[in-house]
């Protein structure tokens, strides 16, 4: 026979009441009205496990719901109906999120708000307009949805369930249908408010936002921050060991990571200074250190705390909650002297997630970003072939870049953060060569771009060269689920290396994405200057060569093509000029002269002599009105050659050349030209005019701009 069994099931979550400590009701209570404040939360969360869609394929479905409601209702005895209660205030605040998706369809819901449902004889009465306001909107991925093949979320702002028989200072928590409720009641009116003292400060790592809070009755406090969580701490910088030294945050070394939230409650502050606080929670994940809560045994009317920014683009909302010692349940605190329940950090009047001001900054101006859409990329100067923009969104420019201002990338003194101007296009360059680093910065004078030099890690690596990698290579959801980047923009890598036969070379052609490397052979340039008694200064030639190659790296072509840079033979010359090799070509009259390095009219040496894209220093040029005419390949025999030696097969030309006046041909250092007109040696009269106007860029685009417009060819924005 089975033994008699007695079961006792105890489940605290199923409507079991927790008796709170009975303390005397605090705060003034209107005489005779039995004014009572009801606070609590409604927590409706769900994760769907093992769900599949309704199709025969039974595709897996992800399903999440998270609706967080806080409320504060005030009741008093109804003077018109003895024995009845009336409700004088009914404030609700909520944040709702839900998503359901399979591989082929989905539905997303998100919404938040607060509302005072106003006076009513019933705590749960609402109007249809209020119901509509409390609705959390959902959007289907499909434009037209005829049927639901996945579980559709219906996030709902549940109304509180209030048992008016509860006695003052009593609190309860219970669960109905998986929805968790808390409710507490206190006699009198608990008022709690908080303020952030310095929300106008733009964020930077280590920036502390000071929080003060006070209440008219004692209790516990809790602050929560809903923070952005961008990778790294600037558009081009990951959190690494140097970060903690750079921003004087040694206490967080090894604890704070590059993917952690951007606004946190620093656990070290709590540990050493604020013993009334529990360690910030959570201790890991996307909400790491986002909650700061009083210890269980505290009962305070005033508290102070600090929120620490860890990122130049940190952005978030701070909320405060207060749990009266009598009553116990958390109620939202208002922002001092307002009806608001949240404080945006930093100040953001125009709601674009960027600080309104940067007081105390060093040249940065957050007014630049005022009213700009955070995804805007509208840099308009200088004018360029790729239109507006430099591949960096307004938010990326606001969040800013770690730039190199000194030689030693290992030194904190060599690194400086800048928020860049969203109206001026930016170019980032790294060079391991100190001289080229300095001269790269000066490229700003010639290009009118804002040019910044960076250490290798600040564009990821010399191979990657990605200047906004923390925004692009990041898990989605840096800020409100949005990636604030639309192009992976690249910088340039400039090196000083040997280049046989050349002074500079660009591996690839602009925009920067396509340019592996810019090579400058500084030693060759020095040799060229030192070996030429007519030249004294080497630096202008280095500047010009660098500007020329950077021009290519930004999509600028030469002023023309066609220079002769290989041995040729000029036929039927009256006599061979000094510097050429005299000889004969069978079937022709007069000497034949072998030479090379001839600047041709309208070719590379043509155009504006002040432009770095113009070639300089050639051996010969073709005077105006007498162009060289090709006669095909000829057999050239030098005058002093042995009779049995074989003739050389070389291209033959008819025409005249003149000695290039190198002394007059200064390196172009003013800036990229804006038209094809020849200047300097290309504007000399008659036969002294070396190469004339530029001939290139006569396509429609450049013709509209006068032709030969180097500046208008600039391409800085990388392809989408």
């Amino acid at each position, binding site marked *: 026979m089975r033994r008699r069994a007695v079961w006792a099931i105890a489940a605290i*979550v199923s409507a079991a009441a927790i008796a709170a400590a009975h303390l005397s009701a605090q705060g003034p209570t209107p005489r005779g009205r039995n004014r009572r404040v009801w606070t609590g939360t409604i927590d409706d969360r769900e994760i769907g*496990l*093992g769900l599949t869609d309704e199709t025969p394929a039974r595709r897996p479905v992800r399903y999440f719901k998270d609706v967080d409601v806080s409320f504060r209702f005030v009741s008093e005895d109804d003077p018109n109906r003895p024995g009845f209660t009336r409700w004088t205030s009914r404030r609700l605040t909520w944040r709702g999120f839900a998503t359901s998706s399979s591989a082929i369809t989905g539905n997303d819901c998100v919404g938040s708000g607060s509302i005072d449902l106003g006076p009513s004889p019933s705590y749960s009465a609402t109007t249809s307009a209020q119901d509509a306001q409390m609705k959390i909107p959902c959007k289907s991925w499909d434009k037209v949805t005829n049927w639901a093949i996945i579980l559709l979320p219906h996030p709902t702002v549940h109304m509180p369930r209030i048992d008016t028989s509860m006695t003052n200072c009593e609190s309860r928590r219970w669960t109905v249908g*998986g929805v968790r409720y808390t409710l507490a009641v206190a006699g009198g009116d608990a008022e709690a408010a908080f303020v952030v003292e310095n929300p106008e400060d733009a964020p930077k790592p280590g920036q502390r936002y000071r929080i003060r809070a006070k209440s008219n009755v004692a209790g516990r406090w809790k602050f929560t921050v809903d923070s952005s969580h961008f990778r790294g701490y600037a558009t081009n910088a990951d959190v690494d060991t140097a970060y903690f030294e750079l921003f004087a945050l040694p206490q967080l070394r090894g604890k704070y990571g590059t993917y952690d939230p951007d606004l946190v409650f620093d656990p070290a502050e709590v540990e050493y200074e604020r013993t009334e606080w529990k360690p910030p929670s959570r201790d890991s994940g996307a909400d790491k250190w986002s909650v700061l809560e009083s210890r269980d045994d505290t009962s305070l009317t005033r508290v102070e705390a600090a929120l620490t920014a860890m990122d130049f683009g940190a952005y978030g909302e701070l909320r405060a909650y207060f749990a009266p010692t009598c009553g116990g349940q958390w109620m939202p605190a208002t922002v001092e002297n307002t009806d608001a329940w949240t404080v945006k950090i930093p100040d953001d009047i125009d709601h674009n997630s960027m600080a309104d001001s940067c007081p105390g900054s060093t040249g940065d101006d957050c007014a630049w970003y005022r009213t700009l859409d955070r995804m805007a990329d509208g840099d308009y100067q200088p004018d360029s072939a790729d239109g507006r923009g430099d591949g960096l969104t307004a938010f990326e420019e606001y969040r800013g870049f770690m730039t190199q201002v000194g030689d030693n990338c290992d030194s904190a003194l060599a690194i400086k953060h800048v928020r860049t101007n969203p109206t001026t296009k930016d170019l980032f360059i790294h060079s391991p060569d100190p001289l080229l680093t300095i001269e790269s910065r000066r490229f700003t004078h010639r290009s009118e771009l804002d040019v910044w030099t960076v250490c290798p890690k600040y564009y990821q690596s010399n191979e990657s060269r990605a200047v906004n990698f923390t925004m692009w290579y990041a898990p989605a959801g840096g800020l409100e689920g949005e990636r604030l980047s639309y192009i992976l923009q690249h910088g340039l890598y400039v090196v000083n290396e040997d280049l046989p036969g050349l002074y500079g070379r660009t591996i690839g052609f602009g925009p920067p994405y396509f340019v592996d490397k810019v090579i400058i052979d500084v030693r060759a340039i020095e040799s060229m200057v030192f070996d030429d008694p007519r030249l004294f200064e080497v630096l202008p030639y280095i500047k010009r060569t660098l500007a020329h190659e950077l021009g290519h790296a930004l999509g600028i072509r030469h002023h023309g093509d066609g220079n002769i840079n290989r041995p040729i033979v000029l036929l039927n010359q009256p006599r061979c000029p000094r510097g050429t090799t005299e000889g004969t070509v069978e079937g022709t009259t007069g000497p034949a002269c072998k030479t090379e390095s001839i600047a041709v009219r309208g070719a590379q040496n043509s155009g504006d002599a002040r432009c770095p894209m113009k070639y300089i220093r050639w051996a010969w040029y073709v005077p105006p009105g007498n162009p060289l005419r090709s006669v095909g390949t000829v057999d050239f025999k030098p005058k002093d050659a042995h009779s049995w030696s074989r003739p050389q097969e070389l291209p033959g030309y008819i025409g005249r050349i003149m000695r290039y006046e190198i002394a007059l041909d200064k390196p172009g250092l003013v800036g990229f030209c804006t038209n094809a007109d020849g200047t300097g040696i290309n504007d000399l009269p008659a036969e002294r005019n070396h190469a004339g106007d530029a001939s290139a860029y006569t396509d429609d685009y450049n013709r509209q701009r006068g032709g030969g417009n180097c500046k208008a060819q600039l391409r800085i924005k990388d392809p989408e």
Partner: protein
Amino acid sequence: MLAPRDRGTWDDYRVGSPVVMKDAAESRYRMWFVGCRLAADRHDCAVGHATSADGIAWTRADSPVFVPPNMPASYWLNAITVVKAGDRYLLWYSIDGDSFGDRPRATLHLATSTDGTAWQETGLVHTTMQDRSRAIRHATHYDGKLFHLWYFDFPDSDHVEALVHLTSPDGRVWTMAGSDTLDDGAARVGRPFMTSASDGRGGFRALLVDRRNRGERPSLRWLMSVDGTMWTDGPKERESLLAPDLAIVDLSAVDDAGGLWIWTTMAAPEKRSAESIGVAFKKGSGS
């Protein structure tokens, strides 16, 4: 008895899969459980530890005693089992598969400890046999020689789910012993709690939520097996529905104080993932 705590804590959404053992120390009972947190679509889980003098009031540590290492940002720890073998504790924990994360199959991992609070990860010990087995709801038992593992899978790659039985000498390398479809009803039973047969003749007993008979309300039922592979129905203990919106999902049991204690994972039938832990006591030992 043990409910999820306030938002922001590591176990703010789910507290379930309890494993309770008698303890020689002052606390009398110790419990390991799974705690999970959820905020929007971000979620993760860990193993918590609590102690109790009476089995009803529990003191849990603020922080988890074991967080599965090398996990993706979001993951779901489905169930844990703990076995004490000699002076060592062995913890098997199962991680749900995630088709969206390119790991469709559920996995079973092992961690070990000498005190039950400081755990060392050993590694992956088993993966489900089919992609459609996205969860491992497992039970374990140590018979003094071999470790036994049971969970639900599709061993014959057809569509019939079965309770699979595996054995291992060390808890790491598992060998398939066999499986039982439970009269083609394996998909309609809950995660079993396994113990030795009490009649002294060897064999195993399983206590689980049984929903196989569609004409009856779900119940807690004993199953019996001689070899741990083939099972026969035993007596029903009680209905598993505690209230219209609260049902037992699985349980851990201990024979003590003249009766059978069971600590249950409970959840609303419509919201199965939002679990909490309750306790029940049956005077006299289980059937």
